[in-house]
């Protein structure tokens, strides 16, 4: 039955996530200013939350009383901006997840203890992985692969041990070049880490990259995770990217409501559009954008819960959630700063930070344009006719 009620467990999970975000708020500015220079200066568990129930643990424990684990996770993610991650749980090691899912027992024994990032993007290959230059050449003499190339925009590479890296293999008999996935660890000769990227926002999300010059890895480093398998992870992640950004937009909207209320404007949803002023109308339209996006995230996550995360059956809905979420957080944060006026851009408040932070959501994990191509192809029955 169609139902939008939240279980008690879900309300509790949202409250736990919200509390954690509120505690982190007082470190948000400092972290925003410094984290790129002092990566991960919050390591382990911050003392402020050491004695408190962790949102992750609460989710694991309470998942049976929710609408579904992936649904509850998204609900928690959307509650408010997570400016600072007060617990370094290692759960952001996306490459380690890949190894767990696709590695052989031998590979897990060899690399399982490492924290691995995932490396896909290159300076000239972002949304178009076919353009990738990084490559692996097999050397039968030593049973090794020889790696060359460059990877950028790698999340948390600076603090991890290496990366599960997507690259081009050698052309087969038909001249087709397959993608291969290789575990690259930092200590290998020829791996050169590049400095952290300085960026517009999301500065607590550390981002770096590496060069590969004639790096030799044993054949066992190659995972049986083809590009399609790598991409299947996107179905799970894309709505979450939207959810994280919606959390920033949620905090922005709540802040804007609060500040306008101090000036005497309380939004009235009952009356019609002829009876409201410009700011009130704009806020209502932005709330509508937010709730519209919320619905598409929930839809994608509900389908994922029904079909299983690995399914491709909800890929269009995952793209819908990502495309709409990415779009509305831009509109909402831009619009709120316009309403808030000069005071809103001051670093005394976090509004300007949220404006910067959410902007990446329409770019990473498949830019809005890529999502639209995927959606349009599905609607039009196209493959490469549309690119």
């Amino acid at each position, binding site marked *: 039955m*169609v139902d939008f009620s939240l279980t008690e467990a879900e309300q509790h999970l949202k409250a736990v996530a919200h509390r954690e975000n509120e505690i982190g708020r007082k470190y948000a500015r400092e972290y925003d200013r410094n984290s790129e220079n002092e990566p991960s200066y919050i390591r382990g568990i911050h003392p402020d939350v050491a004695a408190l129930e962790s949102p992750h643990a609460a989710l694991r424990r309470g998942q049976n009383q929710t609408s579904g684990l992936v649904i509850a996770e998204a609900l928690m993610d959307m509650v408010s901006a997570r400016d600072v991650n007060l617990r370094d749980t290692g759960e952001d090691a996306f490459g380690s997840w890949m190894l767990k899912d696709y590695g052989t027992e031998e590979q897990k024994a060899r690399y399982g203890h490492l924290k691995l990032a995932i490396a896909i993007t290159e300076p000239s290959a972002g949304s178009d992985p076919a353009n990738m230059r990084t490559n692996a050449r097999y050397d039968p003499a030593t049973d090794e692969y020889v790696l060359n190339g460059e990877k950028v925009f790698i999340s948390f590479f600076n603090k991890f041990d290496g990366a599960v890296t997507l690259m081009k293999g050698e052309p087969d008999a038909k001249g087709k070049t397959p993608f291969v996935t290789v575990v690259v660890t930092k200590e290998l000769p020829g791996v050169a880490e590049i400095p952290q990227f300085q960026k517009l926002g999301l500065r607590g999300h550390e981002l770096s990259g590496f060069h590969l010059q004639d790096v030799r890895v044993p054949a066992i480093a190659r995972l049986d995770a083809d590009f399609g398998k790598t991409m299947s992870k996107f179905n799970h992640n894309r709505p979450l990217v939207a959810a994280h950004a919606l959390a920033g937009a949620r905090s922005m909207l709540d802040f804007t409501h609060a500040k306008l209320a101090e000036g005497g404007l309380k939004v009235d949803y009952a009356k019609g559009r002829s009876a409201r002023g410009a700011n009130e109308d704009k806020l209502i339209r932005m709330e509508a954008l937010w709730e519209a996006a919320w*619905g598409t995230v929930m839809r994608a996550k*509900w389908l994922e819960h029904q079909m299983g995360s690995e399914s491709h059956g909800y890929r269009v809905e995952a793209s819908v959630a990502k495309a709409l979420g990415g779009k509305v957080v831009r509109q909402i944060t831009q619009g709120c700063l316009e309403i808030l006026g000069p005071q809103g851009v001051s670093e005394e408040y976090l509004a300007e930070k949220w404006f910067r932070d959410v902007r990446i959501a329409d770019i990473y994990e498949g830019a809005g344009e890529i999502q639209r191509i995927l959606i349009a192809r599905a609607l039009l029955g196209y493959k490469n006719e549309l690119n």
Partner: protein
Amino acid sequence: MISFELSEERQIVRSTIAEFGRSVLRPQARRLDTDSRIDDGVLTQLWSTGVIQAQAGAADDEVGARSPVTNAIVLEELGAADATVAVAMASTMGFVQAIADQGSAEQRSKLLAGFTGDRFQGAAVAMMEPRFGFDVSEFATVAAKAGDGYVVRGVKAMTPLASRCSHFLVIAQSDGAADAFIVSRDAAGVTVAEPKGALGLRALEMAEVTFDNVAVPSAMRLGEGNGADIQRIIDSARVGIAAILTGLSRGVMEYVIPYTKERVVHGVPLAQKQIIAFNIADMHIDVEAMRWLNWRAAWELEVRQPATKTAQLAYTYASQQAMRIADDGLQAFGGHGFVKAHPLELWYRNARTLSVLEGVAGV
């Protein structure tokens, strides 16, 4: 528990109404617009779906039989075929539901029976008023206490199928608050004007209804002594309109897709141009988003949670995006979108018309 699961019953309702829309309503939509009238045959067929009778027949304890979520699904399907006919049903539904929801026992037993028969019976919530800047937060129509009853005075605008209504639920200012009064079409002082024609939804024959000192007994004040929850009527109407706009938008998208795949421009199908393909993707994104937001508002109405905020947001979002979708759809057809050989120009007019109305629907 978050769920988008449609019960088997709802799936059947959806596919039945969808088929009815495709085979019966869509082929006649242009003719209805041209005639500026919904003929009795179409209304009879609409009535034979049994949707309105189901609302009227539901007893107090059978909330399930009167389901806003199901009704939102029905209105989307009707809206995808012809928004005009969808409003014809939704408008009567709005009246019937207000009585079923908020009427006293006597009002329900006296009035609802009139909507359980075999023939179409129109009725409407008379909410909007003929002045620029009208808003549902302020009514110029007044109901003044007079002896045992009330005297209703004012003019209502854009009332759907006004000449075919047996009753109006007149929303009027009374004793400092908005209230609702059940007025028979035949009551002394009620005048239904000739329709002036309108940009869209032309076949609805939306007309002004004048209430010139109409005497209304206390027994016909909705809810009698308790008065009525006008906001719930407004909320329900907003969700109903949003559902029809969702359907209208989907109809546009489904019509645009085959055309743009067939139409070759500069050597390639139009749909292979990113600007067109992206517009189509955005139509789909918005139709999905509209529907889920709207289901949520309908669900809140169904479980009797406060629904005012979500209903407003669903209405706001659907109004804004449906207009854009109809606009982009017309543009994709170029000159063919502007001429009457295709329905784009009709949907363009209907989208703007429907999205500025209030109170003309119910779920």
